[in-house]
């Protein structure tokens, strides 16, 4: 799906990313975790072709900068961490933006269906005629989630979704719901790279974990491999204990 080798990224002589390798398979859910300022969002930006890095990033075996922007938008979508607060449109118009790559002047039947389906899934359908600017932070997050999901609603195989802290401002129910939707998406041979802060949720849902610290990869592998007390205490500078989750049998991290 996506291969990147030894990515480095500097901003004003300050190393933000230093020799990071990323390798993602079809159908894989990769969670990027790490303390603040570890370079998680920058890594996601580089992988999603937002900022140019000197190193090659191969997306579906082709250099990502050689893809046409319009074509790429049907294969991958990105959910950004800082979504605009001021969009003077109705909720359904914002979700419909996800369908812009697919129609010229008027949305077709498929576009309307994709919009409605995704609004149902993310639980914003009842808000569809509300003005976006009057929504709460969590509701706005769900609208954008709905938008990026609608963008990848097509018949292309192996799509890739980037999500930068999608759970910000969401209540418990919607956090789980969002992760369920992403999991369901990856189970159809699509892939997702998600920046997460909650290690327990990452352990529960992700196939692979990339633990970052100071722009470098601190650990990479399955949740069981990465979430060891040594790795985590070292990365976060904070003591922790790890035990088995009584229901899912995933590693469960208890800080303090």
């Amino acid at each position, binding site marked *: 799906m996506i291969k990147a080798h030894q990515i480095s990224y500097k901003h004003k002589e300050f190393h933000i990313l230093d020799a990071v390798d990323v390798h993602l398979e079809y159908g894989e859910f990769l969670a990027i975790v790490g303390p603040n300022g570890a370079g998680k969002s920058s890594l996601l*930006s580089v992988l999603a072709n*937002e900022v140019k890095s000197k190193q090659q990033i191969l997306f579906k075996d082709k250099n990502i900068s050689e893809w046409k*922007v*319009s*074509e790429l938008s049907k294969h991958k979508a990105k959910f*950004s961490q800082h979504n605009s607060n*001021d*969009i003077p449109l109705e909720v359904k118009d914002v979700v419909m933006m996800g369908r812009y*790559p697919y129609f010229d002047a008027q949305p077709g039947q498929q576009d309307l269906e994709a919009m409605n389906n995704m609004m149902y899934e993310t639980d914003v359908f009842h808000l569809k005629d509300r*003005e976006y600017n009057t929504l709460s932070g969590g509701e706005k997050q769900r609208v954008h989630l709905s938008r990026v999901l609608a963008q990848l609603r097509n018949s292309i195989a192996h799509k890739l979704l980037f999500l930068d802290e999608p759970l910000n401002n969401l209540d418990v129910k919607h956090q789980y719901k969002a992760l369920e939707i992403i999991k369901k998406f990856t189970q159809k041979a699509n892939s997702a790279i998600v920046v997460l802060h909650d290690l327990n949720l990452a352990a529960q849902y992700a196939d692979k974990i990339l633990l970052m610290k100071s722009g470098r990869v601190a650990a990479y592998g399955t949740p069981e491999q990465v979430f060891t007390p040594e790795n985590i205490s070292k990365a976060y500078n904070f003591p922790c204990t790890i035990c088995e989750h009584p229901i899912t049998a995933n590693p469960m991290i208890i800080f303090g």
Partner: protein
Amino acid sequence: MSTSAILLFLIAVWSLNTGVYDFGGQSAFAVLGKVFSGDSSLSISDRYVVWDVRAARIIMAILIGSMLAVSGTSLQGLFKNPLATGDLIGLTSGATLLAAVTIVLGGHFKQYLPEAVQFSLVGIAAFIGSFLSMLLVYRISTRGGKTNVVMMLLSGVAITAIGFSITGFLIYISKDDQLRDLTFWNLGSLAAATWTKNIILAVVLLISYLILLPKGKALNAMMLGEKDAQHLGINVEKLKKQIIIITALMIGSCVAFSGTIGFVGLIVPYILRLLFKSNYAFILPLSAVCGSILLLTADTFSRSIVEPSELPIGILTALMGGPIFIAILVKFKKSMP
């Protein structure tokens, strides 16, 4: 859309019938019908008034009003602010300034230029003026891909001030006939409409709209921010270049033929936003029609209120635009933290 087109047509009909000239008891339409059917009973003066004066002026109002409104809407979409219009950020002043320079000093170098350029020299100068102002304003107010709107409006004030002083100086040194031209440019008027000008304007409008009017979706996506717009498959750098060049072209041509008619690009999108939110997929094409409605109405009033004389049209548009400017500011103040 069709409602507004019908409204525009009705206003055009009313406008054609409005005026001081008396067609000897018959209506202006009857005369216009004779013009089209080539009726030989038509007197030359009747034909002249209906076809070369009124009809030409109506068409010019339609073309220029439309282009001014669309340029305002596009710039507002690109810079995500309802105050970013050609006159407020200095494009109009830039165009007026270079047009004025060409009128007064053009005589000295005109003969060295090819004939086609000589004929449209003022138009080309106006385009270059608005384009250079656009570049200057953009450079001053943009940093790292983010445009600061306050900086933008203030650079507009600065450019307007420079333009004002140089135009003032040119007025001081200009000869009588040049002075008439300059005054015309500063006040703005559609009285100099001719069919040749209309054809040039129509060509500019057609080219511009072919590129600009399908950009409604792209302008909506820009509200998400440039990076997210890019993820939706929009080539943001290309979009910016297209809008900047085409708005400069439209504003330049409007200024070259009708002088500075202010506020059209502010008033029309403001009213449309009240009705349709900020959905550019609707308001961009609608502003093309509503701009025509606004300018044609204003022009018809300006030439009929104080008959047989006429009011400079800029007075009417500023009368509407000023309060709307204040209304936008008040709304801003409420949304400020």
